[in-house]
């Protein structure tokens, strides 16, 4: 007897364990690949999976095999031109051709595969040394909001929907009373006939009247409203980030910001972006770069173009203020700002920056995060910013950064707030 077994609903992801082991085992290589990927990615793409590739030789499973050399006598199909005794040069290396040398292809191609979003973020976070609680919060899909979703028959009294409940009650009364009404109509007709015939005092008439009275009592006895009729407004949780936000990325692109510093800055922006995606439905990103003048640019220019010259930080802050006034003035926009610089600023400009921040920018923004990617003694800009932080500890954070692990503390306040 034939057996057909339907296994389609059996547990899926049988390979998940093996997959995890693979990733754990080659974490070092995968982390390097993720680093490269981050360098290529746009800030707003941080929240996706990623195709990464790692060198295949690192993950090969070695076996004893033959190498090149010795005598190989190989039979091939499809002869169209050779006769016995023909001689010809070996085909160039790398092409399989008609040579037997490719028998032992110890491939050196890269091994490419796709990391899921979770796996990718996990490695991204690892580099940044995020606390566990924050990781979970960031990996979670989104905030929930309760929205109306019709009516249910259970709930709390505050949610009773009166119209629905009464409509239900009316219907129930109509339906439950229908047989009585039918009988009642028949009895009333009979009574009217009896009265017409002048037999209104007859025994039958009294009987009918009694019956009518009994039915009327029955009808009255039907409850006006029953627990059964109650309807409640139903609300369900749907993933719904609250509203929209705009994120300003400010970066110094003067000559002293080299590629490595920009990569650190990029992660800093990515982390803020990731945080915002958890809280807001729609996020716009504005990139402002500056040296002595500020300029709004697209992401590619932002991270890759290089300028030289001095540094006037206030120009960027002014531009940001102008953009906010022009495009993000209304209350619906939550404004976040992340600034990265190597700390250089024109001496006379730093007090001006503080003034700008205090009077115009800080009142507008939810959070202002500043990182200074530099070693050594902080300079005048840092000192001025420190004053701002002292005045607004809730929405201003700054940090001097040597490596990736220093980024997170900038956001500590921000995350603590949202976790609470």
């Amino acid at each position, binding site marked *: 007897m*034939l*057996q*057909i*077994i339907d*296994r*389609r609903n*059996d547990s*899926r*992801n*049988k*390979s998940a*364990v*093996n*997959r*995890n*082991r*693979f*990733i754990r*085992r*080659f974490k070092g290589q995968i982390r390097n690949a993720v680093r490269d990927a981050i360098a290529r990615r746009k800030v707003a793409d941080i929240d996706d999976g990623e195709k990464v590739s790692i060198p295949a030789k690192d*993950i*090969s*499973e*070695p*076996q*004893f*095999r*033959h*190498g*090149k*050399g*010795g*005598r*190989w*006598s*190989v*039979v*091939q*199909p*499809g*002869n*169209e031109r*050779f*006769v*016995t*005794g*023909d*001689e*010809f*040069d070996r085909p160039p290396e790398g092409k*399989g051709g*008609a*040579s*037997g*040398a490719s028998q*032992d292809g*110890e491939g050196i191609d890269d*091994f490419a*595969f*796709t990391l899921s979003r979770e796996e990718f973020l996990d490695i991204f976070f690892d580099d940044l040394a995020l606390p566990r609680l924050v990781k979970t919060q960031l990996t979670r899909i989104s905030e929930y909001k309760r929205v109306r979703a019709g009516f249910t028959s259970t709930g709390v009294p505050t949610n009773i929907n009166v119209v629905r409940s009464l409509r239900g009650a009316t219907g129930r009364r109509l339906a439950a009373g229908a047989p009585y009404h039918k009988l009642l109509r028949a009895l009333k007709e009979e009574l009217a006939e009896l009265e017409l015939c002048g037999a209104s005092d007859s025994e039958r008439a009294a009987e009918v009247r009694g019956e009518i009275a009994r039915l009327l009592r029955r009808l009255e006895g039907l409850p006006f409203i029953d627990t059964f009729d109650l309807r409640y407004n139903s609300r369900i949780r749907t993933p719904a980030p609250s509203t929209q936000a705009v994120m300003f990325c400010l970066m110094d692109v003067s000559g002293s910001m080299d590629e490595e510093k920009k990569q650190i800055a990029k992660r800093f922006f990515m982390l803020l972006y990731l945080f915002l995606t958890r809280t807001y439905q729609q996020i716009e990103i504005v990139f402002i770069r500056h040296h002595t003048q500020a300029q709004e640019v697209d992401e590619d220019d932002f991270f890759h173009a290089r300028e030289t010259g001095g540094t006037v930080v206030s120009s960027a802050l002014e531009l940001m203020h102008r953009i906010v006034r022009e495009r993000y003035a209304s209350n619906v926009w939550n404004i976040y700002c992340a600034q990265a610089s190597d700390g250089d600023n024109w001496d006379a400009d730093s007090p001006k920056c503080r003034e700008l921040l205090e009077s115009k920018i800080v009142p507008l923004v939810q959070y202002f995060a500043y990182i200074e990617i530099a070693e050594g003694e902080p300079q005048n800009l840092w000192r001025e910013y420190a004053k701002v932080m002292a005045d607004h500890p809730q929405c201003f954070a700054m940090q001097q950064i040597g490596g990736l692990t220093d980024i997170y503390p900038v956001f500590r306040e921000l995350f603590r707030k949202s976790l609470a």
Partner: protein
Amino acid sequence: MNDDTAALPTGSEWTFESIERYDREIGRVAAEYGLDCYRHQLEVITAEQMMDAYASIGMPVYYHHWSFGKHFLSTEKSYKRGQMGLAYEIVINSDPCIVYLMEENTLPMQALVIAHAGYGHNSFFKGNYLFRTWTSADAIVDYMVFARNVIAEYEERYGEEEVEHLLDACHALMSVGVDRYKRPPKLSLSKERERRKERGIYLQSQVNDLWRTLPQRYDKKEAEAERRFPEEPEENLLYFIEKNAPLLEPWQREIVRIVRKIGQYFYPQRQTQLMNEGWACFWHYTMLYHLYEQRMLGDGFMLEFLQSHTNVVFQPPFNSRQFSGVNPYALGFAMWRDIQRMCQEPTAEDREWFPDLAGSDWRASMDFAMRNFKDESFIAQYLSPKLMREFRLFNILDDASLPKLRIEAIHDEQGYRMIRQRLADQYNLGSREPDIQVWNVDLRGERSLTLRHFKYQERPLGDSRDTVLKHVATLWGFPVRLEEQDENGEVSLVTEVKIDRRRENHEV
């Protein structure tokens, strides 16, 4: 026409009912042809489950290891990119024989798979001498479950990384961890389980005896003659390590044993790929045509069937971009068809080359060939001149000591025998894979293990040998040496790994 021969369901959507009807009809035809099969069991799975099955080499159960994760990831990648369709079928050599049907396949494809795997491969598993001798179809699935549980237990007790490290080493030796000639005992789950504990203790005592450091009393004579160990070279490295490695714990020996047993199970499959696939293709082709001639299959069915059939048995020429060696499906299928032809309509040439075969009963002759050969001997015995001409086979000699490549033989009267012999050799695992044996153990001195590579056709070992040798050293725990012996009997040292696990352990 009665109900039994009513046309089978058409269209591309399958249902359980239509699969059952196809299976019944194909089973009927298979019985008419006298195919002897295990019972079979059809299992419907999704594409994702198919990828899972792929990653674990078709086994429904396998222990966990990162390498399976790697296979899964690469399969998934090429599947998602559409570079590759999934194989239509996976069939497991077990009793009952398990055949996977993928849910995405059309009804004609399911019928093809049933004929190909459920009857073709199935009868091959049951009949071929290699499978009969080397695998225990009734015990394999149970054994895999046992292996997974044991390894999971060890992971819990000794740590995942420890076990993983050991598995890496064993996997590296899987291809040199098989008995090629000695018949292995049948797998039996209950015995395995029963013996597992006592074996550990017993084995350890044997090993301890071998490595006894206290002076033994023995005859002076014997002491003078250097005692060789092993007395005969041992071809099965994993077996030798399991039985003799001085520093392995009993549980580690158990893992070596498990990997060895599983490797042994797959060994016949590697030796009969061409025959087995050709056999299955021959039967799905023959049986479905038979049904078509009985007017049970529609033209639409046949067109779809033939399209996938011809894709599978297509042989691109050597200079085509699709070329990647001789296609075992194509050559295998052609050879079985050719045998049938020679039995039914032999030519004068066939009578000269295959006097016993020409004109004989084709079913009996094919059955004999299926039961008693493997790829190598099958080609050596049955490849006919006609096929060599059809495939336009030719032979290239690539001798590293000569400046140019040379054509040694082509499909002509002078070349037939040479081509046949060379092609057979190409399918001989013994020459395809390097021949490496345990040569000697230095019992009195540093306890080093010497492996010897017997060079075939002067072919050296590939670069991976150093990594593999490190794995051997991990298992052995003492220095490991690799020598090679060329065809003139000259021996030279290739490479050496110095290691002393005892010392390492002390440092830790």
